[in-house]
């Protein structure tokens, strides 16, 4: 069962990623990105990394892409005024670099076999929560100070009258 699901979601992830770079309309590109990210989340679930899967959906598919979509809607370029993309040297170089990266990834992946310990032992919500509130408690708390500073700072810069 697992190999079938892996192939299925892997294909969706790669297909979504290809759609992101080939769609002309930015909105459909962004939506394809969501599809790809969801499929990656499903791959994480297959590897028992439930926490990572949830974060993938919440942060990437949720927050990050929603921001993309906000920006696209704010700028709101009509379809007929989208810039015409021409093949340039940089584009060609980009394709070559991406191809090299793919080959490199393929070569590197031959060195890995199935991990000795199940990922579930470190990737589950429970294990991450335990680490967060014991070893990394301090980092967790400092982040709250950081967020407070960011909120105060954003208010200072954006409010009409302070």
């Amino acid at each position, binding site marked *: 069962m697992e190999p079938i699901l892996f192939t299925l979601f892997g294909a969706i992830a790669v297909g979504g990623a290809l759609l992101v770079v080939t769609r002309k309309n930015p909105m459909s590109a962004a939506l394809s990105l969501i599809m790809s990210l969801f499929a990656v989340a499903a791959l994480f679930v297959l590897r028992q990394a439930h926490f990572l899967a949830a974060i993938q959906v919440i942060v990437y598919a949720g927050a990050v892409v929603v921001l993309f979509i906000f920006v696209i809607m704010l700028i709101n370029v009509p379809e007929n005024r989208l810039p015409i993309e021409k093949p340039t040297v940089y584009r060609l170089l980009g394709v070559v670099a991406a191809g090299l990266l793919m080959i490199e990834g393929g070569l590197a992946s031959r060195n890995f076999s199935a991990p000795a310990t199940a990922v579930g032992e470190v990737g589950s919500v429970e294990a991450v929560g335990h680490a967060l509130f014991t070893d990394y408690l301090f980092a967790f708390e400092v982040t709250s100070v950081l967020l407070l500073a960011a909120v105060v700072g954003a208010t*200072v810069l954006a409010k009409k009258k302070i």
Partner: protein
Amino acid sequence: MIAIPFDSSQVMQGIASIAPEAILVCTAITVLMADLFLAEDGKWLLCWLSLAGVLAALGEVYLLGSSRIVGFSGMITSDGFGMFFSTVVLSACALVLLMATGWSERAGTQKGEFYSLILMSTTGMLIMAKGTDLMTIFLGLETLSIPIYVLVGFQRSRMTAIEGALKYFLLGAFGAAFMLYGMALIYAATGTTKIPVLVYMSVGGGMAGSSLFLAGMGLLLVGFAFKVSLFPFHMWTPDAYEGAPTLVTAFMSAAVKAAAFAALVRVAMLLFPGVSPAIGPVLWVLAVLTMTVGNISALGQNNVKRILAYSSIAHAGYIMVGLVAGDLLGSQAALFYLLVYAFMNIGAFGVLMLISQKEDDGYDIHNLRGIGFKYPVLGALLTLFLVSLAGIPPTGGFIGKFYLFSAAVKNGYIWLAILGVLNSAASIYYYLRIVVYMYFMTPEGEVVTPHTPPFGYALALCACAAVVLVLGMIPGAVLTMAEQSVLSLLM
């Protein structure tokens, strides 16, 4: 269900290790709250409240002393090294707040948000200086930086403020990303972010063969270079310094630099020896280029704030000389220099703030014409701070440079020391140019009338001058303190 063991002694130890930070955060929140309930003419209270918080934190630092307290499973350690830098950062913060009493109304910074941002930034600096885990250092850096980005752009109506804040924010974000990337690579190579474990793994060149680890260290260095404005990552410095309200410029130049260097010295003393053949020449070149570019760019400037901004780049280069030397003496000299630098720079900005009538044009060097003889105290104070920045005896700046360069010579970096001294000589030109304008240039019209400093302000200036002079004549005690703190790091 995994049970989380509760060990009350460990909890208490953790709280003790971050007590000064906790005091600062509580004060910051109190100031924000008090701001809501205070009427417009009662806002002066906020500044004194913040100052009280900073002094309480400083007291707590001394109560904790230099004993080693490891908190939160090794994320943060309160030790002699942390104590030294906590002292530098908190004194810089206290001086700036002391200047802000009775001054903030004029600068438009009499706001609860202003003070709470300063306090939260100071918290980040302490965390960065005491962090013994790469993750803590990064979080400290961000907690330090985000309030500073906002403070730079605090006077939103000025174009230079917005420009400076935006540049600083964008480049700072890049710097943070570089640093994080470096940490991720180091984690990938070693499987840990804890500095003591990294030291154990890298000692004797154990990790020198790992290209992941080397790349990680390099990117980490780039992240630090952004924060302490080393060449070629210094581009934001003049704009951010010029755009920020001068109070904030003084705070940034002294405290941010000290905190960033604190973490850098910790990493450099502990982790660089393991990769020294690779990273040593890089540090050498960075130090020389930073000094030279900073000094040469300062020569042609007419805005005094920009001159001091470029001079701060050059000073980062001098301090790097201590890190290149890489031994106890070098780090000790760097620590001493950072302390003196905080006081002399805050002092110089403090005097300039009184003389200048407004931001931007007010800091043109021509405004200083004739100040020297008409206002002898201000003239003498500014001259003292500039002489110290130039490194002329009998000031703290001279002693600092002397130890930095002699550490370089002692470790065989003769050329580095020679280039440093040459640079230092070149810098005398633009420092003394300011002095010449004050004393020997006839004003074109009226001599500008400086503001009369309020009591707290005058006190802060006197404190700066006293520290610069005392450290120039009897530096022994502070040098020993710096030595002790570096030793506590190596323990």
